[in-house]
């Protein structure tokens, strides 16, 4: 299997997911190539987190098949680092220990762990909080710890579930830039969920729009905006066109879901 380097980094084939009688995902097929930065947008409750969970191996599809780097998941796949929507920090560990957890699992020496962790603590702007427990952090600070924890662990595939939702615009921008830098330098494969279409356009190489429940892929858009995506790019015709397009696609689905409920 290791020789199949041309296989997609992540491949979903006809994946459906039911929770009891409720269908969360319906026949989703999607291939993410190595080095892609895929952003997923879609209405609240449409199945985005469900999809990410299954890619990480936390859950199994009801039907269909998910392969990561050519292998089907048999359990939690530690090669897919995940930033959870609910942070999932270890409450009994300090900020530093939370961030160094993955390194400890790789049996890295204590001193080295500490250095690496400090690097990422600085990156997310939490210097001074190394010894704090998660309980003593604000919402946005917790989210930053969760992000730093996965970045420090440096997995091949990174999955982000609304990682910047609790951050102010400025901190968000700083972290977006860091993420893009890491992505470009190390050619990671990234799947990223967000509700901000601007964020999607700024970060992605490809944007997936999902339908309302049950989730399906309704749009698969190649984001060909030039880099770096500075203010000029954000004012370009192409940017605004893509934004409008995606906005309408998502809006149509949300309206459909609200109508279905009413």
């Amino acid at each position, binding site marked *: 299997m290791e020789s199949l380097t041309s296989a997609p980094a992540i491949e979903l084939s006809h994946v459906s997911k039911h929770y009891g009688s409720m269908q969360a995902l319906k026949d989703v097929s999607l291939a993410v190539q190595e080095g892609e930065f895929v952003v997923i947008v879609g209405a609240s409750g449409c199945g985005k987190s469900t999809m990410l969970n299954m890619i*990480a191996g*936390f859950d199994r599809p009801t039907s269909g098949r998910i392969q990561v780097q050519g292998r089907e998941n048999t*359990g*939690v*796949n*530690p090669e*897919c*680092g*995940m930033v*959870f929507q*609910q942070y*999932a920090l*270890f*409450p*009994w*560990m300090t900020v530093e220990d939370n961030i160094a*957890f*993955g390194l*400890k*699992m*790789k049996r890295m020496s204590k001193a080295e762990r500490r250095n690496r962790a400090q690097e990422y603590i600085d990156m997310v702007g939490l210097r001074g909080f190394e010894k704090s*427990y*998660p*309980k003593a952090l604000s919402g946005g600070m917790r989210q930053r710890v969760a992000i730093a*924890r*996965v970045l420090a*662990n440096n997995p091949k595939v990174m999955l982000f579930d609304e990682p910047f939702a609790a951050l102010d615009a400025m901190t968000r921008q700083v972290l977006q830039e860091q993420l893009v830098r890491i992505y470009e330098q190390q050619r990671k494969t990234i799947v990223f969920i967000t509700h901000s279409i601007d964020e999607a356009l700024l970060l992605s190489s490809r944007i997936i729009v999902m339908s309302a429940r049950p989730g399906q892929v309704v749009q698969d858009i190649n984001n060909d905006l030039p880099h770096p995506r500075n203010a000029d790019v954000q004012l370009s015709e192409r940017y605004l066109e893509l934004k409008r397009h995606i906005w309408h696609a998502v809006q149509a689905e949300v309206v459909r879901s609200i109508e279905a409920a009413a």
Partner: protein
Amino acid sequence: MTAKYAPPMVSVERQPRWRRLKNPLISLVSFGALLLIWEGATGLGLIEPLFLPAPSQIAQRAIQMAEQGTLLGHIVASTWRVTVGFLIASLVAIPLGIILGFSQTSRAIFDPILSFLRPLPSMSWIPLSLLWFGIGESQKYSIVFMGAFAPSLLYVIEATKSVDPLLVKAAQNLGARPRDVMIEVILPGSLPQILSGLKVMLGIAWTCVISAELVAAREGLGFMIMNGKEYFQTDTVVLGMVLISVTVMATDLVFRFFERRILPWKA
């Protein structure tokens, strides 16, 4: 503007510094009141001393036994037995419980034997323990162990279930192997509940030691109570009970001290 509906404010029960003494004070007063009523009721002859001796009478008995030098011996003997049996039981139950709580397969293997052992009261082990271990100290340790082990184990297994599964997922996602998950997530995550369980278990361990001292013991608080009963010395009986309480309370304080050091993230 008129206030139509003003729901009551609900106190958050957080005390400023000077009020920190309020609760200990209340406890002290209620303790004093209890003692006074007790002394009064027995002093006025409302309660026969055979049924319940006055606190002062119990205190006298305590002084008498302390002067004879037997009191400390009883306390030390029982405490030592509890400590040995309980420590061994916890040291086996905690790791085993975490493994069983995590792995369904291992739970399936051990389930038959554990389901059988778990419900057995320490008392019911007395006959077999006497046959197997004789009358020495090891028989007493074994009773404490058998009585405390199975409930502790059950307890630890239950505690592991209270750990947020999301945290297990997060750890696995960061490369934790099963052993790491157990040591780094299940253990610390269930530790608060394990500790509060161990406090209950310590009580069970004391029950066991009293059972154990029923037979073939010449000292220990259980022996003291049962011997007092033989001679209708209700004051000795109640004194024994008081001493158990006080000893357990003292152990509890030690426990709490460690608890605070082990769980800094809870404070």
